[in-house]
């Protein structure tokens, strides 16, 4: 589904990604871990299409499409969803109107008619229940006055509504207490299926107790330097990142 080859990217002349390779197949959950400054957030930004990052080399193939050639909105409509680390507040734009617009724009892209209002409301209700989202939040402005946990849950709710092929969670665990973390994770787990893939970017192993990944990769200095299964995350939790750094230095 997603094939990243030799990806190099920089921001303001500073090289962040230095030849990253990653293969994600349908239905797989990949965790990307790594120390601060390794390039984790840059990876999610580049995949979502943030303009301030420049890709200097490499390719990203998403279901046969050159992802890097697509605008951010077209990436979304092709089925990429980024759950932001810091979802912003947009006063004056209601959650409901925002979601209706997003869904209908996606349908337009797919050559479908806009969704009937009753179908849309029914879908809202179902997905709200699925991710245990408080009803009162949807009538408010987008993320306005939401707590940290509510903002993250709203990201997962949006993901549930937009039904992407690939969900990218960018440090979704940051700033969440254990209860909020569990709620968000349960939401994500309910969205896992045979077709939908996830890239879970996190600094801590804690999140992976709830969202158990198929693969764990360690990102360091803009490359994936080690891959393994869920047990690698446990090892990192116990031993920290230093031994990885040493291994990389020894091999270079």
């Amino acid at each position, binding site marked *: 589904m997603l094939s990243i080859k030799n990806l190099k990217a920089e921001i303001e002349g500073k090289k962040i990604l230095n030849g990253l390779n990653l293969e994600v197949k349908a239905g797989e959950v990949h965790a990307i871990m790594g120390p601060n400054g390794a390039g984790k957030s840059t990876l999610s930004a580049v995949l*979502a*299409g*943030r*303009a301030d990052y420049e890709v200097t080399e490499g390719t990203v193939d998403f279901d046969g499409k050159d992802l890097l050639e697509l*605008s*951010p*909105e077209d*990436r*979304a*409509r092709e089925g990429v*969803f*980024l759950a*932001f680390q810091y*979802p*912003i507040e*947009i*006063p*004056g*734009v209601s959650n409901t*109107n*925002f979601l209706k*617009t*997003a869904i209908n*724009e*996606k349908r337009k*892209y797919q050559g479908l008619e806009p969704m009937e209002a009753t179908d849309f409301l029914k879908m809202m209700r179902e997905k709200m229940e699925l991710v245990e989202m408080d009803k009162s939040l949807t009538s408010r*402005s987008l993320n306005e006055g939401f707590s940290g946990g509510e903002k993250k849950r709203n990201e997962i709710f*949006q993901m549930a509504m*937009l039904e992407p092929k690939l969900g990218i969670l960018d440090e979704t665990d940051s700033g969440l207490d254990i209860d909020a973390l569990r709620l968000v994770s349960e939401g994500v787990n309910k969205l896992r299926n045979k077709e939908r893939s996830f890239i879970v970017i996190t600094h801590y192993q804690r999140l992976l107790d709830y969202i158990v990944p198929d693969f764990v990769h360690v990102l360091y200095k803009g490359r994936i330097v080690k891959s393994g299964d869920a047990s690698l995350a446990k090892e990192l939790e116990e031993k920290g990142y230093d031994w990885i750094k040493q291994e990389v230095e020894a091999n270079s």
Partner: protein
Amino acid sequence: MLVENIKAEFNLYKNQADKSDFFLKREQAFAEFEKVGFPTTKNEEWKYTNLKNITNQSFQSTCESTIETELMLSHAFLKDLTANKLVFVNGSFRPELSTIIETDESIVISTLAKAKTAHSELFNKHFGKYAPIEGQGLNAMNTALLSDGAFIYVPNNKTITNPVIIVNIADSTDVNVLCQPRNLIIVEKSASLTLVETFYAVGNNPSFTNVVNEVYANENAHIEHYKIQNQEGESYHNNFTQIFQEANTNINHVTLTLSGTLVRNNLHFFMNGQNCNSLLYGLYMPHGTELVDNHTRVDHAFPNCHSDELYKGIMMDKSVAVFNGKIMVHLDAQKTNAYQRNQNILLSNEATVNTKPQLEIFADDVKCTHGATIGQLDEEPMFYLRSRGIPSDVARKMLLNAFADDIAERIKIPELVELLEQEIEKKI
């Protein structure tokens, strides 16, 4: 040249007029106009707004109007709203186009021309008492040669159930037209009024509308006052609104400038008692080479009053906006709460905003803030919306609507809010 037109017109009027008190007032105003003339950019208050395109042309007052007027009315804003409507074309009252549905006979919804005799006591008590003439050439010109206007009187404890809409149309089909509406609004103790002023223009010649409003709010009165300017073509507009508030009054004023070659709004509030609440909101969205200038002044003369002001601008093409908000907190006005903000979004590299929030505080126990911003549409919200599949042009519209909604939601007539939203949609 406009100044010659004015002089000729006044001489004509002078020869016909009876020598009443009203005439003397107008003669005095004319003398002031002759003395000070039109403001120029040398005057600090007019630094960014040059009137030479008005003063270098000829304009004439006329009662004539064409079929265009009725066409305009047929698709005018709020035509379907249940309301009392007073229609003025080129400054003259048009009873056949107006409707008064208010049934309470103690309430007066009429014209200045009629009120001068029918309600002479009220007229003499209030007319010309609030809008200053000294040093104000345009106010003096209005007073000297006013055409007509609305006279509204709401007695103690009364409420006008439906809004009153004053529709002003400048019809310049045949000539360069000068309209000088003059409205006098009196809302007595514990009475309330919802007032909408709308301005349109038809015809291909230039028009100049020069309005003076005097609004008197007696103790505990409540006034909702909305002004909508949508004068297309070569339309010039100046207006001066003085709101005089007694104690415990509550005034909500919204100024919407949708279109006009040059629009200058002067909005002044004077709080003449304690516990007054004054709300001033404005939205302007000039395009092309339009200029919109909002000058406001709030005088906190007594303690324990509150004022809140927010003006927002969406600037397109080569348009120019001026904002100058002055809050005066007088020596005795302790415990004043006064807030003022001006926010602008530039959608073009060639648009200009000159903004000057001003506070002058002579009391020592007050809470006052002011500030202004000029910027582009933020990148972060744009990216957020796009990352959910919303294309950039739709995302931009959503964000601009959200920006404008902050003002639209201050309007308490749902039909008007809806129409405004459609109008905003069209503009952006």
